[in-house]
C-alpha cells in the first residue's frame, strides 16, 4: 500500500468514530496544553529572573577585598596578590583599585575657590589597567599619561557648591531638571585638592566670606568625563579617577596635611570572569588565596535553583497530564482494535501486509497526537494570552527579590515558537508511542476472524 492510501484509511477510521476520536483528542489537547502552559510559566519565571539579575549588576563580576584581620589565612591585597589573581583560569579582566575619600579635604575650582566640593572619592587604577576598567568617556578624552590628568565622574561637576550663592540655592538640581547645566565647565576649569585653613580668630568673619583661606595640595586637570555606570564603579558617578602613579604621589602629599592612612593594599580588585558558569569556581579560588570576595553569585545561585525547582515541579505536573493523555490514546486504540477484530481479519484474508496494518494503526494513534498537539498548542497560546492579560506579572515576584511587583517586564507565561513545534512533535511521538502496543496486537489478530460467522 502507498503511504497515501494508508493515511486515507486512517483518516476514515478516525472519522468514522468521530465522538471517540474527539474525546481522545481532547485528552491530548488538555495534556499538551498543560505541558505547554507549565513550561511557558517556567520560561516566564526564568526570563523575569534574568531581567531582575541584569538590573542588579554585572553577574560575571567578582569584587575582591582583603579579608578581615581575624581571618587566619589572610593575605595582603597588594601588587603580588593581584598578580596571583591574574594567573587564575577563566578570567577576562582584573582591575585593581585604590580608593581614598577626601574626608576633611575639599575640591575647589574657579576664581578664588568659588566652587567647592566637600565630598568625593579619588580612585587610582594602574595605568595599564585603565582600558580594562572599561570606563566610557562621555565628554573629553581618556587620560593620556601626562601628570595629574584625571577623569571626573558624570555628575562630579554638580557636586560643587557655588559659595557666592545663598545656602539652599547654591547647588544645581540635576535630579529633577534634565536640562540642568553645572555652574562651570569642568573640562576647562582647573580643579584643586585643597585644605580649608581654619583660623579661630576670624571664625565669625569667615563664615560669610568667600575669601576663606585655602591651602592647595594638588592641582588636577580633568581631561574627560565618564559615563555613569555602577558596574564599572561608583566613581563614574561623582568621583575622580586617575593613574596609580599620580594617586600614590597625591596620597603622599595629602598624608602630609591630614591623617588619611597610606596603604600598600588595594581597596578592591574587580575581577571579570569569562562565563557566568565559572563565577563560582573562580570565586572559590580567590578565597583560597586568602581574600574576601563578593559577587552576584551568592544571590543568583539560590534564585536560579529555586526557579529550577519550580520549573521542574511545573513540568512534572504537565508531564502527568500528558501521560494520562497517552494512556487515553492507548486505550482508545485498543478499544478500536477490539472493535475491529473482524475487519483486521478481513484485511489479512485479502492480503493486506502486516506492516501496512501496523502502519495504519500507528498513523491513527499518531494523528490523534498530531491533532491534539496542534489544538493544544493553539489553546495554550490563548490561555497564555489570557493569563498575561488578566493575571499580571511573573511568579518570581513572590519575595525572592525585594523588587516591586510588576517592575520586571517579563510576561507571566512566555511561549516561544520552538515550544509550539516541540509540543506538536512531542504529541505525535507520544501518540505513536501509545499506539505501539495496540498496533502489535492488531497485527497478531488471525485472518480466521474473517471466517467466523
Amino acid at each position: 500500500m502507498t503511504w497515501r492510501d494508508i493515511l486515507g484509511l486512517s483518516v476514515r477510521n478516525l472519522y468514522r468514530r468521530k465522538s471517540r476520536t474527539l474525546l481522545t483528542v481532547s485528552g491530548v489537547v488538555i495534556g499538551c496544553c498543560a505541558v505547554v502552559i507549565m513550561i511557558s510559566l517556567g520560561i516566564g519565571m526564568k526570563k523575569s529572573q534574568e531581567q531582575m539579575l541584569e538590573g542588579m549588576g554585572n553577574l560575571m563580576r567578582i569584587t575582591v577585598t582583603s579579608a578581615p584581620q581575624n581571618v587566619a589565612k589572610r593575605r595582603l591585597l597588594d601588587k603580588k596578590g593581584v598578580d596571583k589573581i591574574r594567573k587564575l583560569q577563566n578570567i577576562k579582566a582584573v582591575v585593581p583599585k585604590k580608593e581614598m575619600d577626601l574626608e576633611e579635604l575639599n575640591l575647589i575650582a574657579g576664581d578664588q575657590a568659588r566652587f567647592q566640593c566637600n565630598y568625593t572619592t579619588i580612585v587610582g587604577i594602574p595605568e595599564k589597567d585603565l582600558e580594562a576598567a572599561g570606563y566610557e568617556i562621555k565628554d573629553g578624552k581618556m587620560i593620556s599619561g601626562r601628570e595629574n590628568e584625571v577623569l571626573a565622574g558624570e555628575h562630579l561637576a554638580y557636586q560643587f557648591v557655588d559659595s557666592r550663592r545663598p545656602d539652599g540655592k547654591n547647588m544645581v538640581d540635576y535630579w529633577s531638571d534634565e536640562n540642568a547645566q553645572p555652574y562651570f565647565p569642568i573640562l576647562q576649569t582647573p580643579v584643586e585638592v585643597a585644605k580649608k585653613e581654619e583660623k579661630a580668630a576670624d571664625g565669625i568673619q569667615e563664615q560669610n566670606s568667600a575669601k576663606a583661606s585655602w591651602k592647595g595640595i594638588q592641582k588636577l586637570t580633568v581631561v574627560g568625563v565618564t559615563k555613569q555606570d555602577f558596574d564599572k564603579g561608583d566613581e563614574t558617578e561623582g568621583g575622580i579617577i586617575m593613574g596609580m602613579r599620580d594617586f600614590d604621589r597625591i596620597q603622599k602629599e595629602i598624608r602630609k596635611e591630614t591623617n588619611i592612612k597610606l596603604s600598600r593594599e588595594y581597596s578592591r580588585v574587580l575581577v571579570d570572569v569569562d562565563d557566568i558558569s565559572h563565577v563560582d569556581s573562580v570565586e572559590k579560588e580567590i578565597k583560597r588565596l586568602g581574600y574576601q570576595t563578593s559577587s552576584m553569585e551568592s544571590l543568583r545561585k539560590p534564585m536560579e535553583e529555586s526557579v529550577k525547582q519550580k520549573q521542574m515541579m511545573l513540568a512534572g505536573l504537565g508531564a502527568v497530564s500528558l501521560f494520562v493523555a497517552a494512556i487515553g490514546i492507548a486505550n482508545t486504540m485498543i478499544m478500536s482494535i477490539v472493535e475491529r477484530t473482524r475487519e483486521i481479519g478481513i484485511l489479512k484474508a485479502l492480503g493486506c501486509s502486516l506492516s501496512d496494518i501496523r502502519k495504519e494503526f500507528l498513523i491513527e494513534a499518531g494523528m490523534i497526537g498530531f491533532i491534539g498537539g496542534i489544538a493544544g498548542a493553539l489553546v495554550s497560546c490563548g490561555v497564555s494570552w489570557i493569563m498575561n492579560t488578566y493575571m499580571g506579572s511573573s511568579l518570581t515576584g513572590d519575595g525572592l527579590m525585594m523588587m516591586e511587583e510588576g517592575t520586571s517586564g517579563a510576561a507571566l507565561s512566555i511561549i516561544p515558537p520552538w515550544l509550539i513545534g516541540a509540543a506538536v512533535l512531542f504529541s505525535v511521538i507520544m501518540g505513536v508511542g501509545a499506539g505501539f502496543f495496540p498496533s502489535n496486537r492488531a497485527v497478531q489478530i488471525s485472518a480466521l476472524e474473517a471466517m467466523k460467522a
Partner: protein
Amino acid sequence: MEEKIDTAQKITVKNRAMIRINRLRKVYKLEDESVVALHGVSAEIQRGEICCIFGTSGSGKSTLLNHLAGMEKPTSGEIFMGKTDITKLREADMVSFRRKHIGFIFQAYNLLPGLTALENVALPMMFQGYPKKERNKRAEDLLKRVGLEKRIHHYPSQMSGGQQQRVGIARAFVTDPKVVFADEPTGNLDTKTTAQIMEMITEMARQNNQTIVLVTHDPHMASYADRIITLIDGKIVKDEQKKK
C-alpha cells in the same frame, strides 16, 4: 483409498495441478479431548476447475478451506499451490501470497463498513499498491459486470445481502487471482439470489480460466461445479468429476 488417490496424483503432476493437497491432517486439541477435523486428506485441483467441497455440517469443509487459504496450519501434511508449500510459509509471507494469488468470497460478505462499494472492490488492488485511478477504473468495470453500476458509491449498509455479495464477488476477482476461495457464499441468501450469485461466480471464473474452491452443504449448488469432493468426518468419501 488413499493409495488410489496417491497414484492419481502421480499422473496429474504432469498436468500442473493448481493445488495439491497431500495427507493433510488437522487435530484440534481441546482440554480433555482432541477433535480430528481432517483425517489425512489428499487431492489435486486443476487449473480452471470449479471444485465444490460438499458435506454435512461438521464434516470439516471450512477447516479444509481455511488450510488451503493458509489461515491455519495443519497438524501434518502439505499443501502445494503451484510450486509453493504454503504450510511452510510464515504468516507475513502467507499474507503476501494471498495478496498476489488468492481471492476470497465470504459467507458474511465481509465488506468494510467504512468504504463504498467501489472502494471495497478496489481494496485488494490498493494492497498491491496500484494508484487510485487505475484501481477505481478496474473496480468500476467489475461492479458493472456484477450489475451494480448504480451502487458504486453506496456503503455496505445501504445494500441488500445479494448486492453485498456481488460486491464481494467483484472484490474477489479484481486482482485476477489464480484461485478464488468461497465458504458458503450463498449461505445467507435465498434460492433465487443463490442461483444468480453462483452463475456470476462460475461465469467470471470461466472467462479467465480461474480455479474456484467452493464450500457448501447445499446439493443444489454443487450442480454448478466441475467436480465435487464429498467430506464426511474429515475424510474424502467421494470425488466426482463432471464432464465439461
